[in-house]
């Protein structure tokens, strides 16, 4: 019997186009993933920044990595939201009763998450440049930064996929991201950890955001990166693999 040829990449393209249209038509999404981090950056630089002692001259340089992580963490909550709606409104069932590649439906959401977060990160970096962000790093460190951010996005996107696939309500599908958005505040993203009380400091120094922020900061300022980059990569890949396994399990169980 002849087997049916599947067109994974063509299906993936259709799914990507669909979700990107969803984003471009949702003012709410654009405000949350782009405008809010920019507003936060303005607030920290021009209001709190004067009172924060980081030991660096340029606070925008210090702040930017943390802002980017916050933007990604709020961006992926929309992935969970879109996935949940697809599941709830039966559109996934329509896709799954068609002779298409089933995994393309889920990968479409994942790819959308990466593409949309890349766009918001670029927009935020442009605004940061206007605000005085400067980096003397060459192409290689920038590529390393891009790689870490994409890995971080993928790791959180798979976490979001678990939330979107298993949630019972829209609120549940996006509420999981609040702790993720909050995590950068208890790290070295905005202020050095030295000033924190011991307990908070131990937490801050050992949670994933700090190592990721430190690695990106070092790469952008041309300093020695040290161990941070390996710790950061281990966190991102670890979270990604575990979340991927659980998300796939949830996806296959439902269908």
């Amino acid at each position, binding site marked *: *019997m002849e*087997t*049916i040829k*599947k*067109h994974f990449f*063509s*299906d993936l393209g*259709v799914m990507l*186009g*669909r979700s990107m*249209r*969803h984003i471009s*038509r*949702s003012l709410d999404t654009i405000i949350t993933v782009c405008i809010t981090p920019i507003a936060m950056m303005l607030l920290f630089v021009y209001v709190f920044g004067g009172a924060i002692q980081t030991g660096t001259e340029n606070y925008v340089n210090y702040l930017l990595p943390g802002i980017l992580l916050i933007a990604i963490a709020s961006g992926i909550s929309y992935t969970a939201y879109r996935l949940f709606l697809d599941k709830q*409104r*039966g*559109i996934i*069932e*329509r*896709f*799954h*009763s*068609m*002779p*298409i590649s089933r995994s393309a439906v889920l990968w479409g959401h994942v790819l959308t998450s990466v593409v949309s977060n890349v766009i918001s990160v670029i927009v935020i970096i442009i605004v940061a440049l206007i605000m005085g962000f400067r980096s003397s790093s060459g192409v290689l460190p920038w590529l390393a930064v891009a790689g870490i951010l994409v890995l971080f996005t993928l790791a959180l996107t798979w976490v979001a996929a678990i939330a979107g696939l298993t949630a019972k309500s829209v609120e549940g599908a996006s509420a999981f991201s609040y702790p993720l958005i909050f995590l950068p505040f208890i790290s070295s993203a905005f202020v050095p950890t030295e000033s924190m009380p011991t307990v908070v400091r131990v937490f801050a120094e050992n949670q994933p955001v700090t190592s990721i922020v430190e690695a990106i900061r070092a790469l952008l300022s041309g300093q020695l990166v040290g161990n941070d980059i390996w710790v950061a990569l281990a966190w991102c890949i670890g979270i990604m693999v575990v979340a991927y396994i659980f998300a796939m399990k949830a996806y296959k169980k439902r*269908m």
Partner: protein
Amino acid sequence: MKNLAIQVKGLQKSYKQHQVLKGVNFEVEQGSIFALLGSNGAGKTTAVKILTTLLKPDSGTIKVNGFDVTSNPDHVRQAISLTGQFAAVDEILTGRENLIMIAKLRYLKNPRQVAEDLLKRFGLTEAADRKASTYSGGMRRRLDIALSLVGTPQIVFLDEPTTGLDPEARLEVWKMVKELAAGGTTIFLTTQYLEEAEQLADRIAILHEGRIIANGTLAELKKLFPQAKVEYVEKQPSLEDIFLAIIGKKEAM
């Protein structure tokens, strides 16, 4: 020999402890309209999900268009389309974009033309470039069915296609179903409305507590009941008759 579009033998399905389908058997002839009738919770949707490869059966042999749903789901999916209980349209896309998307997923040659034709056929040309979220219930259902017809599948599954629709929209759906069947498409529909089955179906099966308790043409099912007595009853118009008459008059004005 008659050609069978669907064959179901000994279909069983449980959710944890709860047995939903307890050995269901039926056949659907090619090109006919088959109605699975049953009250809420009788297991109709579960049966549809198994036939459309969304759920795996616990046991039984289920063939759709000659292919086994468990061992050959891709071949089944090529022959079918599903219109679920809730209109599964993409609300953020326009009607036209919805149709083009499905046409692309079916690898059709000219998605734009396919969309254009279906919009015309389902009276959605004017609303084509509006988001589906702005559509009325009836329009959404029309778009939903139009999406199911992209690529002209041989077997169309309609799970409670008129639940939640107003009487006018329901009549529209009935008309579409009849036209489809006239064109040779096999139609499998579930409904909880007796009248719907009576109006549309060539064969009706009644699913009750996980089993088919009756299966036949309307005439055959009628024979299961005692001989009709002739009584003289004044025929009162139903509220639906009145509603449709008034609406009809209004539109004529």
